[in-house]
């Protein structure tokens, strides 16, 4: 399949990419890993006249630890995150990176591209919503940082201006006593999940001091399930509190029926994923090494 013909521009730096975007106007689009954009272009759902390729920009693929935060360069591939010992310090980030699609897609797809694409079925936005995440952006007027909660505004829609680029993703290290887990339920590796749940908890003994719960693929954006969080916060975790959180997550979900399942099925599924993710998050908060991977039907 051939996409519509387009003009190809290779940026040598992020700054140059911003300049190119501002010159090309609305017909220009950025190409990062291309694992969403290229299929969309082949199906002619996206028909940009100009592509600005970021893949030849040096120095924008990195994972750094810095003042209690992890910093991810925009072009860091999912596979680089998957194999990074630094990134694994926040286990939920490793869960996400290691489970996205398949080896080939992880070798190519990028964390910055995924966030900027804001696909409702993407994994990164769901996971990063449970952490203190800010998005660093570069535009013609310079830099700004936007909290993730304000960055993704709707399906495929972000706060980025037309000439703005994601340059870095900054994630604060969770406080001591924290544990998190991300579970995505998929029919096979290369497809988007049917539903997913990210849970990040801070525990003191059996009591949950703080909770962040986000649901993926069951709404136009990742959904922060605040009622589900409240069901855990300040509570001793028991079967009852976990069920209450799962129930609240089901209520918060707003799934669409599609070829992956009915709305009701997805609602049931996301509740079950939340409950399992809570159990795994607690074990990790206690210091247990738990391997978490995506679940297949």
């Amino acid at each position: 399949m051939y996409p519509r013909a387009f003009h190809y521009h290779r940026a040598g730096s992020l700054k140059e990419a911003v300049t190119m975007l501002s010159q090309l106007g609305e017909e220009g689009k950025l190409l990062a890993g291309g694992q969403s954009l290229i299929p969309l272009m082949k199906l002619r759902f996206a028909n940009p006249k100009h592509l600005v390729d970021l893949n030849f920009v040096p120095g924008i693929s990195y994972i750094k630890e810095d003042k209690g935060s992890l910093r991810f360069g925009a072009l860091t591939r999912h596979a680089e995150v998957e194999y990074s010992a630094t990134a694994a310090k926040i286990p939920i980030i490793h869960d996400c990176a290691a489970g996205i699609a398949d080896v080939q897609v992880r070798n190519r797809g990028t964390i910055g591209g995924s966030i900027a694409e804001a696909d409702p079925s993407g994994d990164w936005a769901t996971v990063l919503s449970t952490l203190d995440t800010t998005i660093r952006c570069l535009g013609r007027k310079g830099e700004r940082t936007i909290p993730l909660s304000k960055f993704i505004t709707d399906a495929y829609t972000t706060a980025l201006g037309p000439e703005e680029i994601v340059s870095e993703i900054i994630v604060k290290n969770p406080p001591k006593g924290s544990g998190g887990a991300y579970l995505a339920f998929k029919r096979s590796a290369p497809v988007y999940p049917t539903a997913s749940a990210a849970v990040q908890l801070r525990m003191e003994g059996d009591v949950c001091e703080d909770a962040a719960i986000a649901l993926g693929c069951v709404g136009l954006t990742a959904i922060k399930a605040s009622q589900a969080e409240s069901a855990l916060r300040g509570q001793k975790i028991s079967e009852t509190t976990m069920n209450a959180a799962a129930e609240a997550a089901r209520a918060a979900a707003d799934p669409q029926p599609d070829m992956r399942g009915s709305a009701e099925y997805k609602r049931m599924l996301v509740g079950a994923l939340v409950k399992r993710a809570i159990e795994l998050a607690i074990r990790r908060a206690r210091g247990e090494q738990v391997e978490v991977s995506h679940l297949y039907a």
Partner: protein
Amino acid sequence: MPKTAAKAKRSLKPKEIVEPAIARVPITVRVNGRPYSLAVEPRILLVELLREALDLTGTHVGCDTTYCGACTVLLNGASVKSCTIFAVQADGAEITTVEGLEKDGQLGSIQKVFGDCYALQCGYCTPGLMLSTYQLLSHNQQPGDKDIRKAIAGNTCRCTGYQNIFKAIQVAARSVKGG
């Protein structure tokens, strides 16, 4: 003439379908160790470059939607789906296709093991699976069952049921380890 056909004819007026001239982009790639310099239209995918411009038809097009992995090649040592990367993006890169797995005109070790283990039936998915195997074994010489399953999760086979492919990868891993 039916109304729709008249409409279709109208929309095909040359004036309306002419795109502004698209500049071809000069690129240099090394494929299986051999250097090539050519100019490509930006929308040409890597798999099309390999198959049509370079006549390396071992790399297959299966689904053409980033699902099946039949088009898997190595780009600077990392497996990618060549239907989901533009040829211009491979500029300066080292590419390995299934043709590059052979050694001096003989089947390479992974190719041989796939045959010995009956790990193929129609053979359409096989080049992609062998390159995914190559990618796995170049990072992990002692893969466990889970590692193998994960390594080939992006390759679809509609004939074998995967059991013999799985066995072939286990055998290939042992032969790599043994030298």
